């Protein structure tokens, strides 16, 4: 199969989860030739060997500068590779930089064939960022829960309250002080630590 049927795509990303999400999306969309590179040593040599039509790289990756070397006139370059985003495509550039990904293609690959790849890439990167955000929030919610449970225990012991009463006290204090319940609970833990 030549580039006309399914372009060969290389994903350069040190995050294996994000790369897997992107790879899955590309395969579902019918792009079968997808390779993930996570090892940055001798990145150029690997890319030359794979000879891809499209390279996708995350913007947190310092090795992005290494790829830029391939655009330069040099004996090492067998196929000139150009940045996809051309002068007329400001919206695409903005969207991909916002999502945290950059795309490079070989010269000659038609723009209409790249658009769906880039769009998919942007949506998967955004989905990953959202997932990461939710994970972080879930983690901090779990932390909060633990802190609140310990604060309730302290209130129950010191003030002879039931668990429900301890929680109501925490909640009403939080409302009055315009703070989160987790913050009030944390200050109770800190205070009890100090007063030990």
């Amino acid at each position: 199969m030549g580039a006309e049927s399914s372009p060969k795509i290389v994903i350069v990303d040190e995050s294996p989860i994000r790369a897997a999400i992107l790879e899955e999306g590309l395969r579902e969309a019918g792009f079968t030739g997808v390779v993930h590179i996570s090892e940055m040593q001798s990145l150029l040599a690997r890319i030359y060997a794979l000879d891809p039509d499209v390279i996708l790289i995350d913007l947190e990756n310092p090795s992005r500068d290494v790829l830029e070397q391939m655009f330069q006139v040099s004996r090492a370059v067998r196929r000139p590779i150009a940045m996809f985003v051309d002068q007329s495509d400001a919206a695409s550039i903005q969207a991909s930089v916002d999502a945290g990904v950059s795309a490079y293609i070989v010269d000659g690959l038609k723009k209409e064939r790249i658009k769906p790849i880039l769009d998919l890439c942007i949506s998967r990167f955004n989905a990953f960022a959202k997932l990461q955000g939710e994970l972080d929030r879930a983690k901090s919610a779990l932390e909060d829960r633990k802190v609140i449970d310990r604060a309730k225990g302290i209130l129950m012991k010191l003030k002879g309250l039931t668990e429900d009463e301890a929680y109501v006290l925490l909640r009403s204090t939080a409302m009055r002080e315009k703070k989160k319940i987790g913050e009030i609970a944390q200050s109770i833990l800190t205070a009890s630590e100090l007063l030990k």
Partner: protein
Amino acid sequence: MTHPLRIGFIPLVDAAALIVAVDKGFAEAEGLDVTLVREVSWSNVRDKLNIGLFDAAHLLAPVAIASSLGLGHVKVPIAAPFNLGLNGNAITVSPALHAAIMAELDGDRIDPMATALALSRVVAARRKSGAEPLTFGMTFPFSTHNYQLRFWMAAGGVDPDEDVRLVVLPPPYMVDSLASGHVDAFCVGAPWNSIAVDLGIGHILHFVSDILVRAAEKVLAVRQNWSEKNPQIVAALIRAAFRAAEFIEQPHNRIEAARILSAPERIGVDADVIQRTLDGRLKISPDGNMRESSRYLLVAREGAARPDPVQAAWLYAQMVRWGQASFSPEALATAKAVFRPDLYDAALGRKGTAADVPGTIGAFAGPPFDANDIGGHLAAFAIGRRAS
């Protein structure tokens, strides 16, 4: 009224004037509310400046020119109204390559012609024995580092595209790559040369001021059209950076400057390593040899901060020499116009006289640089990739 600004930078000592301007309050005093954004690649800095996610950036001077000419990337005219660093790079070599060069050296060890000739003998011997070509790391295709390395080795007869490998490496990876033998040498800015020496895996062979008396490496860059729309903000930014640069150049302020720069969200490297580079007093070999130079890393002294279009012309000439650009008088004019001494002078209320312009490149080999005859100038160099 304060103006919010987002400014990108790469963690390197030559971002000093920018970082100190913000963290020491010079920017705030000018009515600027600057958020500094630490970046991991020059490509990111360039793209985020180009599309407006950054208002200004710490940028490789040749990238500012390449961007204005549309070389290798989207064409976005850039203005550079302030130099962030001259002569801050150094060439560091592995202990093995250092020993090989010293064994072949005929002359002074800081004479770049002597070391370049020694390098050419090392390269010839390796070729004869069938060894792999030497690999040199630098930070970006459009970088003064790239041109300094090429200029040096070509003067000794080493063709940088034929006889050795030149590879791009992100600055934070340089030291690891030298340690692992992935590269035999590199040209990079502070503090990475010092870190390689401190780890015992590298010798600083040259300060780049051995190769060129003056070379612009980084600039404070803004989009040209943005600078036209926001002249007061640009002027305020120049004044803030200027005051910071002057602050840093005072020896008694260096401890404080180094402490500011060493913060984890800034450069994130030990303050004493940073201070050595600000002082121009560097440990050059693992056994503790020191070398001091008043020409290392010029921040404000010798008029370093004032952009000099002759420097831009020299950088453009290197792009032509190495086949990154073809020569045209229009492109030369565009390249020179990226460096904006007029904005610098206006912001600082200076007249800008001929005496402000050092106009010197001071290369150790070849005829003196002539910005008005780049073709004739380049013809004097045997090695190059010029498009005919």
